[in-house]
């Protein structure tokens, strides 16, 4: 347990060093970007001093480390705002999007995985296997464009872009309390706003769900097939429970643990996948922020987001390991 936490800390330190190294190998001059296109040599030199780029690398690394631990993650070269506050503004929308996507993925994939495992090798199994491989093979930026074209431009059933209908900003302004707009809408009882956000969430969430759905369906199938041969599940069969109950209640119960671990892993991946989707749907999250940062070569912003997602990822993995060890006495953390 202590070893597991220490390892996570080591990984975090490594991640910080890795982002620093990436920032140091950029071919461009951050000071020149900061000062703007027509700055004089003196202004660039002043910017270099201001950004601390004239100091030796190890001092810079120490300062970078200290800054990250104390919450100053540098300034965006483009917006000149602290990167961490930019991330704080953008992260809730992305976390809502990924959570919605994973809920959709679980709702679709768990039943399909169970059907697949119940009749392995059958027609339904082959179709579900092909479908889940199709899900993990999907170029999601392309899927986003196609769904947007079909459902909003042609069929006009779902909104094309944004987080809510702009008109609601005047009739039902959102009361910002937690930063998570869905939660804010619920606690302030702003139902028209809630409906609008949910409608705008459907398309991006379905697109982000494609990959996790494929993955989870495969996992559920493999795990359930593994567990149905175990003796205690055979015992339940012998006791005369229906096949349906054997699969959905008993075998699935054992499958949940690895599936939950996979969901935590895929959370980090999906957060990165929002980079490809949010800009298309104009969803105001980390993905839109990063896409804009890439377009303006805003290195501190890109690395800030990288660091943030890596931290979320490490934390999620650690949490899953600890919870699993607490729930399942067969798992011992070393």
């Amino acid at each position, binding site marked *: 347990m202590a070893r597991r936490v220490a390892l996570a800390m080591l990984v975090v330190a490594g991640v910080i060093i890795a982002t620093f190294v990436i920032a140091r190998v950029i071919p461009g001059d951050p000071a020149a970007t900061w000062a703007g296109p027509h700055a004089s040599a003196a202004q660039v030199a002043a910017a270099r001093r201001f950004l601390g780029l004239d100091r030796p690398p190890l001092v810079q690394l120490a300062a970078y480390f200290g800054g990250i631990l104390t919450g100053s993650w540098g300034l965006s070269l483009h917006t000149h705002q602290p990167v961490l506050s930019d991330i704080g503004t953008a992260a809730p929308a992305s976390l809502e999007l990924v959570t919605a996507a994973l809920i959709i993925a679980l709702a679709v994939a768990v039943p399909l995985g169970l059907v697949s495992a119940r009749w392995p090798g059958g027609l339904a199994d082959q179709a579900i296997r092909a479908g889940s491989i199709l899900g993990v093979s999907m170029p999601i930026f392309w899927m986003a464009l196609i769904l947007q074209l079909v459902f909003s431009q042609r069929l006009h059933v779902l909104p094309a872009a944004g987080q809510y209908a702009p008109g609601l900003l005047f009739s039902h302004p959102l009361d910002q309390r937690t930063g998570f707009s869905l939660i804010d809408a619920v606690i302030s009882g702003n139902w028209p706003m809630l409906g609008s956000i949910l409608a705008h969430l459907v398309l991006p969430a379905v697109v982000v769900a494609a990959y996790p759905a494929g993955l989870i369906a495969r996992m559920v199938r*493999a795990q359930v097939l593994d567990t149905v041969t175990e003796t205690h599940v055979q015992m339940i069969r012998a006791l005369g429970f229906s096949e349906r109950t054997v699969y959905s209640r008993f075998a699935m119960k054992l499958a949940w643990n690895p599936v939950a671990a996979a969901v935590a892993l895929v959370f980090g991946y999906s957060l990165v996948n929002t980079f490809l989707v949010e800009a298309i749907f104009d969803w105001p999250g980390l993905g839109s922020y990063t896409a804009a940062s890439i377009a303006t070569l805003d290195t501190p912003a890109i690395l800030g987001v990288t660091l943030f997602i890596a931290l979320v990822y490490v934390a999620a993995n650690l949490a899953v390991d600890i919870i699993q060890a607490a729930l399942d006495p067969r798992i011992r953390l070393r």
Partner: protein
Amino acid sequence: MIEAPSPAAETALALPRGQALWHGLRANPLLVAGGLTAVLIIVVALFAPLLAPFPGDAGTATHPFLVLRPPSTRHLFGTDQVGRDVLSRVLYGARISPLVAVIVLLIACVVGIPLGIAAGYFGGWVDEVIMRVTDIFLAFPSLLLALALAAVLPASLTSLTIAIAATWWPWYTRLIRGQAASVSGRAYIDSCRVLGIRPWRIILRHVLPNSVTPLTVQVSLDVGGVILTASALSFLGLGAQDPTPDWGLMVAEGQNYFTTDWWVVTFPGIAILVTAFAFNLLGDGLRDLLDPKRSLLP
């Protein structure tokens, strides 16, 4: 794993080789479909200049009077924003993403295998150092690290390849390390050591050949993943630049005209999907065929 063969493997081995293969393929229609499509894509890549109706359109050609024409018998997939034939560009695109995938996986193997073998065979502090470094790399979702690297390197196909390869090798190091560690603990390796055979000879003759089998399956599974990652980075403008007929770049370029001229985005995207799907079906089927323990059939 090189554990005792499971009963399923024994029955498969009892049949003549060709017949066992035939049985395996019959039971895996998805593998056959994926394999045939993958072969077709490679054929398209090799013979793109012969198959493409307008080979010049894969390069710098522009046709200002043919801009954004919808699909017709002359231009089956329509024309793009500078009048180039989309079909020709999609066919030439088969030369780019799959090649990037091959190079990325090659680099990942060249870097990953020796490190994994060293960690698994020598153990101790060598193992600790190598594995903690891979832990740090594996703490990033690979697309994120590739994206951060590609964003700071000048945008080109070379940068893109380097960025993806830099995120891919740690997976192979981890996989090989586990295999090499389990092989190195066997009695016959100890016998080799006792006989005074040099370590590099033991590694090359015994540890390496007995460790790489699971890697071959993993590599075939990863082709689709690399193609998706590469096209995603190209879509974000971090890879190939115009006029390279890269599928991800074509989707990005067509995005601005998409609501009125759907064909510019649709066909390159289908090409990415079909290619990734084919290689994923192939890799998945191969895993079933070569790894009876994880076989999907009862």
